[in-house]
């Protein structure tokens, strides 16, 4: 008869695993994925932080500058406005689509629609198309001379409103934002539709029996139960807004002037065109931190409301 003591805290080789259960072989399974991940994500991440503390042009040796690149983000007008533009884009990419999708979901009664899958496919399509293609399409739409938008405005007699949208200092950013709204609304809508399907009909029935009209139903039943989906939608769309590169690159290249400059574009611009690699790294890392903080905050707020 053998007595085996149960595992003590802090180690000791006492086994809690059934005999023959895979243990050390697990590391072998992990190894390939971990190796590539470490080499092409973790290492560069560390390297970015390292680079961000230096000034470097890519050719001559780098010089240590400590946190100068980061303070530049706070103080340099151009960089500050890049981040500010990002936050404006959040309104277009996240707030508008989510609100629009909520209204849409609220407007749709619970009566099921045949062919719903077809509508879902179409509404989700903007999410699937490569962003470069989306940018090319919308650049055509916004074309100053004969683009469909201006043509339509002239067609209904609003000639004065027709203008070079992407070349206008004040309107370029909103114009870019509207593209984001077009792309993201489908995502929010599909998310919310799926979420609404999960709400038990009995909750709506109870509300109706209590005398609630459609508006009250929406605020009392639909909205609270979509909390999780709203959080997810806000997270995904906000991150998309912050990471905006393809769209700006294709449509405006950050212009006119700096009016559509965004952090991701600044990373590219500074690293590969201006030879300010340290600064680019700092912007990139800051962007990552902002994303992390916002995602974290949204989840926290959503969880707190959860019963």
């Amino acid at each position, binding site marked *: *008869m*053998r*007595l*085996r*003591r*149960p595992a003590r805290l802090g180690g000791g080789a006492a*086994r*809690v*695993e*059934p*005999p*023959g259960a895979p243990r050390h072989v697990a590391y072998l399974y992990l190894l390939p994925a971990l190796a590539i991940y470490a080499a092409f994500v973790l290492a560069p991440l560390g390297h970015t932080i390292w680079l961000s503390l230096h000034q470097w042009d890519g050719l001559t040796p780098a010089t240590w500058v400590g946190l100068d690149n980061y303070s530049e983000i706070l103080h340099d007008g151009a960089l500050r406005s890049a981040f500010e533009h990002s936050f404006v884009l959040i309104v277009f990419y996240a707030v508008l689509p989510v609100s629009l999708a909520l209204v849409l979901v609220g407007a749709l009664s619970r009566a099921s629609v045949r062919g719903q899958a077809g509508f879902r496919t179409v509404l989700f399509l903007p999410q699937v198309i490569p962003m470069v293609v989306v940018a090319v399409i919308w650049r055509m739409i916004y074309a100053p001379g004969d683009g469909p938008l201006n043509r339509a405005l002239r067609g209904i007699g609003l000639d004065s409103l027709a203008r070079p949208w992407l070349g206008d200092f004040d309107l370029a950013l909103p114009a870019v934002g509207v593209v984001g709204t077009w792309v993201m609304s489908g995502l929010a809508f599909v998310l919310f539709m799926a979420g609404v399907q999960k709400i038990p009909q009995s909750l709506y029935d109870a509300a109706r029996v209590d005398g609630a009209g459609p508006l009250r139903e929406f605020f009392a039943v639909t909205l609270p139960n979509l909390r999780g989906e709203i959080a997810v939608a806000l997270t995904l769309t906000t991150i998309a807004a912050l990471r905006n590169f393809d769209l700006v690159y294709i449509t405006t290249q950050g212009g006119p002037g700096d009016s559509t400059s965004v952090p991701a574009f600044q990373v590219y611009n500074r690293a590969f065109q201006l030879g300010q690699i340290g600064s680019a790294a700092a912007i990139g890392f800051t962007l990552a931190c902002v994303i992390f903080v916002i995602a974290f905050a949204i989840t926290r707020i959503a969880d707190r409301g959860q019963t």
Partner: protein
Amino acid sequence: MATVTFEQVTKHFGETTALAELSLAIEDGEFMVLVGPSGSGKTTALRLLAGLEALTSGTIRIGERVVDDIAPRERDIAMVFQDYALYPQMSVRQNLAFGLKIRKLSRAEIRRRCDETAELLGIEALLDRKPRALSGGQRQRVALGRALVREPQVFLMDEPLSNLDAKLRAQTRSEIRRLQREVGTTTVYVTHDQIEAMTLGDRIATMRDGVLEQVGDPDSVYEQPANTFVASFIGSPAMSLARVRSERRNGGVGLMLGELRIALGAAADVPAEVIVGVRPEHTRLWDSEAGLLGPIDGRVDYVEALGRETLIGVSAPGGARFVVEAEGRVRAEPGESLRFGLRKGRLYLFDVADERAIGRL
């Protein structure tokens, strides 16, 4: 020789003790049933034997070999799971052959065993189907087949019949018994259903809260339960238990049901307070000619008409409750009084403190 031995086997899950020092010796070719309510440790014991969990302490042997640290695949066991656990993407034949292929048996041998087992279980027609195209009963047979085909030293079965409807259950029960007799392999079978236990087992091990309460063949467990738990768990309908006083008078001992005295005769060493147990089949409506103990006048609490017999829940004086079994259909209403008696020699006596059996009168 495929004996199975549990020596002081203990299993802790964190703070909980699932199995406390189980010692059990199972003979070669025996059909041993582990029975008990949920949480009794029976499934834990089976899983320890299978090697799906690690022992906390103690030893398990298969044959002479200690298997504590040996992986399931080396233990030469096969298991039938409660939810059958058939490989969903494989055909029935592939399901049967899977374990054999891993053990690198020859193609011819695999084919032979699969065909034989399929014939034994009557599932030849299903060999090319996938599990999702089978009924519950068919799946159960395939699960059995998968174990049979391995020709192991020990069969382990974890409540294989629980997911079947009652009729299918009874049918399959006798089939399992027949199969085991034919194949002759040592079998350890876990169930919470005491009827299954009584009909299937060569011996029954009754368990509660991780402790083995009694092991023995069905008859002895039924006739001589070791304590009140086994007495009331085994047998259906369950034995009635009541805590009563005893009184010695005029050289004879009597049990006091309230003011009523049931004389037991001169013999017997009966403590002042005792738990008395009577199986319903050993009670009868009062008949002065039948040589019963009593009469006892009680009040009817409920009536269950089962066709062939009627079960009547009765409150006797002093608060003791009995289930009286009457033949055929008997009219009785709750609240009515009922006179009944107990068969001599069928009273079980249990110690009040530790609930162990003292004797039978």
